[in-house]
């Protein structure tokens, strides 16, 4: 099946564009970059049709990577139904975003660099998805982190962009530390890193071991998928170009954590404590991020916090045992969130860089296509039937109710808040009077076409792609409840959110500001993201930096290491200056020394001879 072609094609695109792109024309760069991703997508389709039923995973082994003691890790790719879903999402949406970027980045510098990095990201993401063991997955994991850093800091002459890139990478690293520990623990206790072997041995291992592995893997997932407490990098990551936010921070990279936890389901089903933790982390993040999203004024930040919140939903699904529901939400979220980001990119492009919602308004007439497509995404994310978001979100909420009813109620409230802030953004941007100074114009077709395709998918993707049915053979079965009343409550919450947003931002525009003024303290707190960044800075960053500076640099490096090395030199010099005193210039003292030496030598010889001969004459 030549699975390796799937990631290698984007890698080839990266190499060609990266090495030679500086001299290429825009058309050639486009052809290489987009061509490689589209070809990869085509190969994915061919592989899927070639593999047929896929009741069992199909693996390809390329070479043995590490062979040391019990550890035998090969470079293996595997395809099963879960992989198929992920592959389609990554390559399909990746292709659409690549096409969109032609229009968005048309006037930006570093054109070839952007597409090269984007292709590199595709390569690593595909390696992550196709991996058949945890170490190859980790390679992809780290690689997408690297590409995220490169792309967030794409405008490297802006300090806030490079700072955001650093922040993303460093926070991710904390999660990766947890992942690495999980890998070590897995090797020690389960003896292998191959998915097949590990999942076979997992039921036999002790629950403590599995819980530890599960929690450590969760730490890694929190870093990559921006859950509490490691979510802080995602909002800042909006400093990168909007297609980057759409691809990496909405559709693909941040979902790697969800994919990895879903893939590790045999470990989690035997470690209920870890699964509970996943669900709790997920719902807490969902609620927390939604509250922050209510008060943001930057359109991209609203959607960033929305992403964090929706990722929380996916983790709730996984944590409650509804693995296929979590993956389904991953798919539908990819559709509408990518669309929301690309749409906001279109708005920003129309307004020549304006991102503040307070300076937008009335864009309905100026950018109709953008408005229509974004509306499709908005109704999908609000969970209104029969659009895609409704199906996946409902499946998760039902599973949550089965697991622990309080999670269901919290999820319903969050759904209401989700609908509210998305439609708040929509109303502020597209309705009312225009509050800015730019000359707004519609985006070119090359940007509109992907928006349209994604809009279509957001609308019909729910009932057209029955992902849980597709994945049912893979995951353990979960007794489904078809409680209509629960469904109705969640839909009602969504509609209520929409209605409240309409009330506050279209019908009575002044209401929002007066409410904010009334709840001054609470509003400030939420608007400043609960001062979490400041807390981290004071509690973690400053102590580490100061500790490094004072203890490690001045104390250990300059004092101890330099001191001891220089000290050796100084001692040698001192010794020399003491020995120098023997050079008195007096010949007689030299002669005395000679005599002294010879006497000592003779005594030594005598002693040796006595010891050898035994003192006899």
């Amino acid at each position, binding site marked *: 099946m030549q699975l390796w072609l799937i990631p290698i094609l984007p890698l080839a695109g990266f190499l060609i564009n990266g090495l030679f792109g500086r001299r290429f024309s825009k058309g050639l760069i486009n052809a290489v970059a987009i061509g490689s991703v589209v070809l990869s997508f085509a190969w994915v389709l061919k592989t899927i049709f070639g593999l047929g039923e896929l009741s069992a995973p199909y693996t390809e082994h390329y070479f043995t990577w590490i062979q040391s003691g019990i550890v035998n890790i090969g470079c293996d790719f595997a395809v099963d139904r879960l992989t198929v879903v992920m592959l389609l999402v990554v390559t399909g949406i990746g292709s659409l975003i690549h096409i969109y970027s032609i229009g968005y980045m048309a006037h930006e510098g570093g054109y070839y660099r952007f597409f090269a990095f984007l292709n590199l990201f595709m390569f690593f993401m595909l390696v992550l998805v196709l991996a058949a063991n945890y170490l190859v997955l980790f390679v992809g994991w780290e690689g997408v982190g690297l590409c995220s850093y490169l792309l967030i800091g794409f405008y490297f002459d802006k300090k806030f962009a490079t700072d955001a890139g650093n922040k993303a990478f460093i926070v991710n690293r904390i999660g990766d530390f947890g992942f690495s520990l999980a890998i070590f623990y897995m090797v020690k206790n389960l003896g292998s890193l191959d998915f097949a072997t590990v999942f076979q041995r997992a039921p036999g291992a002790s629950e403590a071991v599995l819980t530890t592995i599960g929690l450590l893997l969760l730490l890694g997932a929190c870093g990559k998928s921006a859950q509490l407490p490691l979510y802080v990098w995602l909002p800042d990551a909006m400093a990168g170009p909007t297609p980057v936010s759409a691809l990496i921070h909405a559709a693909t990279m941040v979902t790697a954590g969800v994919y990895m936890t879903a893939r590790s389901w045999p470990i989690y089903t035997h470690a209920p404590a870890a699964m509970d933790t996943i669900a709790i982390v997920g719902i807490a993040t969902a609620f927390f991020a939604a509250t922050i999203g209510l008060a943001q004024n930057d359109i991209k930040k609203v959607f960033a916090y929305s992403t964090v919140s929706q990722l929380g939903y996916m983790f709730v699904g996984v944590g409650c045992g509804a693995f296929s529901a979590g993956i389904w939400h991953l798919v539908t979220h990819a559709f509408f969130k990518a669309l929301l980001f690309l749409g906001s990119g279109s708005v920003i492009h129309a307004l020549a860089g304006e991102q503040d919602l307070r300076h937008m308004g009335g864009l309905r007439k100026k950018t109709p296509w953008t408005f229509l497509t974004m509306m499709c995404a908005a109704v999908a994310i609000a969970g209104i039937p029969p659009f895609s978001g409704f199906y996946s979100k409902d499946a998760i909420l039902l599973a949550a109710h089965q697991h622990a009813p309080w999670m269901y109620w919290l999820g319903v409230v969050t759904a209401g808040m989700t609908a509210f802030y998305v439609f708040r953004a929509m109303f502020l941007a597209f309705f009312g009077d225009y509050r800015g100074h730019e000359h707004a114009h519609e985006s070119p077709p090359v940007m509109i076409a992907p928006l349209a395709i994604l809009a279509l998918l957001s609308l019909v993707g729910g009932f057209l792609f029955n992902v849980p049915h597709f994945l049912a053979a893979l995951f353990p079965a979960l007794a489904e409840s078809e409680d209509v009343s629960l469904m109705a409550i969640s839909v009602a919450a969504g509609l209520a959110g929409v209605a409240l947003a309409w009330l506050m931002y279209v019908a009575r525009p002044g209401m929002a500001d007066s409410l904010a003024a009334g709840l001054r303290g609470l509003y400030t707190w939420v608007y400043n993201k609960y001062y979490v960044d400041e807390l981290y800075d004071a509690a973690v960053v400053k102590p580490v930096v100061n500790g490094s500076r004072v203890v490690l640099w001045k104390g250990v490096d300059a004092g101890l290491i330099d001191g001891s090395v220089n000290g050796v030199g100084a001692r040698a010099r001192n010794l020399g200056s003491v020995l120098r005193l023997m050079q*008195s*210039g*007096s*010949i*007689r003292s030299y*002669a005395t020394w000679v005599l002294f030496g010879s006497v000592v030598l003779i005594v030594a010889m005598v002693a040796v001879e006595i010891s050898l001969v035994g003192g006899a004459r």
Partner: protein
Amino acid sequence: MTEVPISWFLTLSAVLFVLGVAGFLFRRNIITVFMSIELMLNAVNLTFITFSYQLKRVNGHLFAFFVMVVAAAEAAVGLAIILTIFKNRGTLNIDDVDSMKN
């Protein structure tokens, strides 16, 4: 007793040698130091000849002969050096020849 025990010769040689070393250490005139060296060499010659007698071989005599030759050469060159030192520094005091100090 008309015959001399051979250890007496060795003792004499040891005494002469130690006297030579004493002179070398304690005297301050360069020429006297040199003469002490000659004294040491003589003592060693006596030892060689003594052992040659004991072993009834002529090799010890040859050794002593070569020692004498080398002593002659050394005396010649050494005295030339002393002359030069005297010419340059005007002193025959060994403690004054200390330009190698520190």
